């Protein structure tokens, strides 16, 4: 197990290094000099040079890459070109929207998917199963930002149960914050729930065919008892893996949903930074998201290997 963890850790580090180089290189080749963008076309040459020096743009690319990575390692993400505030501060502020949103969506998607998947598997081939499966096919095909717009139309504009967008802020209380994240979380959760329900169903169906399920029935358990005590428990292992992967997907996928609801999260930060050519912000937020996704994948792999020893030999 330790050997496996070590191997995975090495490949995690390599992934992170490659990711940072790729992101830095992509941003580097971007046309446009941030200094001249900030000062406008009529800026004097010496003012430009001074600003470049202030932003740390006057040294070699390799040096700037090392500064950037080294800074991130100690929590310094540089200074925003447009706002002149530390990027780490901006990210921290936005994180309080994006992270709770992803968690909220994850919880919702689990609450929908688990019962739906178990129900469908238990009634395999019957109308209940076909209905759930049909619904999941539809759920996968629906673009979440369109679903979000429909939610706004129905629950915000017509029924007036929610605001159409914006974020109340956590200082207004937990309830106000959760309330303004509810529609976005539902919009994010639905397509994920459809995928998760399908995984839950097929995983449970695999288990239901196992010999130990027949043994459980033979020793006198009812179908329902066997399903819950032996079936669902064993079926959860692959489902939990998908759940872990979905969290990172939700964090990244929230970018577009935040646009729909005008939520001040990481996604909006990226888009604002893109239009203002505030590339240091784009660079750092993208790296942070990549870091989150790669790290979650790593943890999921480890957790999976911990419960299923067969996987450790496979590298």
């Amino acid at each position: 197990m330790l050997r496996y963890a070590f191997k995975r850790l090495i490949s995690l580090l390599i992934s992170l290094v490659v990711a940072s180089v790729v992101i830095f290189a992509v941003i580097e080749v971007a046309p446009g000099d941030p200094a001249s963008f900030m000062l406008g076309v009529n800026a004097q040459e010496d003012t430009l040079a001074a600003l470049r020096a202030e932003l740390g743009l006057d040294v070699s690319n390799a040096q700037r890459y090392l500064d950037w990575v080294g800074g991130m390692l100690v929590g310094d993400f540089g200074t925003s070109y447009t706002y002149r505030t530390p990027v780490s501060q901006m990210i921290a502020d936005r994180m309080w929207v994006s992270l709770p949103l992803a968690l909220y969506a994850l919880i919702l998607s689990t609450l929908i998917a688990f019962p739906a998947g178990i129900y469908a598997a238990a009634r395999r081939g019957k109308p209940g199963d076909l209905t759930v499966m049909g619904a999941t096919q539809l759920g996968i095909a629906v673009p979440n930002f369109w679903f979000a717009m429909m939610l706004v139309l129905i629950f915000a504009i017509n029924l007036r149960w929610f605001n159409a967008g914006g974020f109340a802020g956590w200082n207004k209380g937990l309830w106000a914050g959760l309330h303004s994240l509810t529609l976005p979380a539902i919009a994010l959760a639905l397509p994920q729930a459809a995928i998760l329900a399908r995984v839950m169903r097929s995983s449970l169906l695999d288990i239901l065919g196992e010999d130990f399920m027949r043994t459980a029935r033979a020793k006198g358990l009812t179908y329902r008892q066997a399903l819950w005590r032996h079936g669902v428990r064993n079926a959860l292992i692959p489902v939990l893996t998908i759940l872990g992967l979905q969290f990172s997907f939700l964090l990244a996928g929230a970018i577009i949903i935040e646009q729909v609801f005008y939520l001040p999260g990481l996604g909006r930060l990226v888009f604002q930074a893109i239009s203002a050519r505030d590339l240091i912000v784009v660079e750092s937020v993208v790296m942070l998201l990549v870091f989150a996704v790669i790290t979650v994948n790593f943890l999921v792999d480890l957790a999976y290997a911990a419960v299923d020893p067969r996987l450790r030999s496979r590298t």
Partner: protein
Amino acid sequence: MSRNLILGAVLSSLVLLAAVISFVWTPYDHAALNIPNKLQPPNARHWFGTDHFGRDTFSMIMVGARTSIAVALVAVGIGVGFGVPLGLTAAARQGSWLDEVIMRGNDLVFAFPSLVIAILITAVFGAGAINAIIAIGIFNIPVFARITRGAALSLWGREFILAARVSGKGAARISAEHILPNVANLLIVQGTIQFSLGILAEAGLSYVGLGAQPPTPSWGRMLADAQTMVSFAPHLALIPGLAIIVTVLGLNLLGDGLRDWLDPRIRVARA
């Protein structure tokens, strides 16, 4: 043939047909402004209504289908074009450093959040259909490389491949003449699924303004335009969304149906 396969084929061909017909005929010019006729709900003259410039929504949906299909299709092409040769090479040289490099590279691309990178690419190199295609296509490469390698590996141990080797064929020739035809079914199924994912990704990118640029109509941008008008012209938001759903649902059903139909094991079990 299953019901899924037929329904999927019908829905997909409907969209494809709309896209093809749009080259020669649309009810109205999709770009023609007609302000006096703006924001009409669906009616006999404008089947899907008109937008805030009085443009005919039905015509825009038809031409938008073209954009969606073109972007997703080329993105799948990139995935197949690079991924399949990589997968075949990795399988032919199984266990070598080349196999290792290809598969580690795959893992690396897989680890990236595709949407975030697609946004980064289109943001830096400029929004547009071409950059959207590249951004979506890159993430198709490891999908096809992995599935090709997996299927090819199981074939390399079979007798007919051994026979080909005995007859003096090299690894490249065997891969092209014997392995590739035998993994084609899998690739078709996966291609259908990636195609539908590509349609969704293109819609997402053009919704945030990073896909095809005006005046090229795209479903994602139609939705973005509709957002501020959703309270008084809901049809503008409803219709492009339904177009995306029909396309993606059709392709997914087609993929599922094809998998069942092409998989000989399932066919035997059913017979």
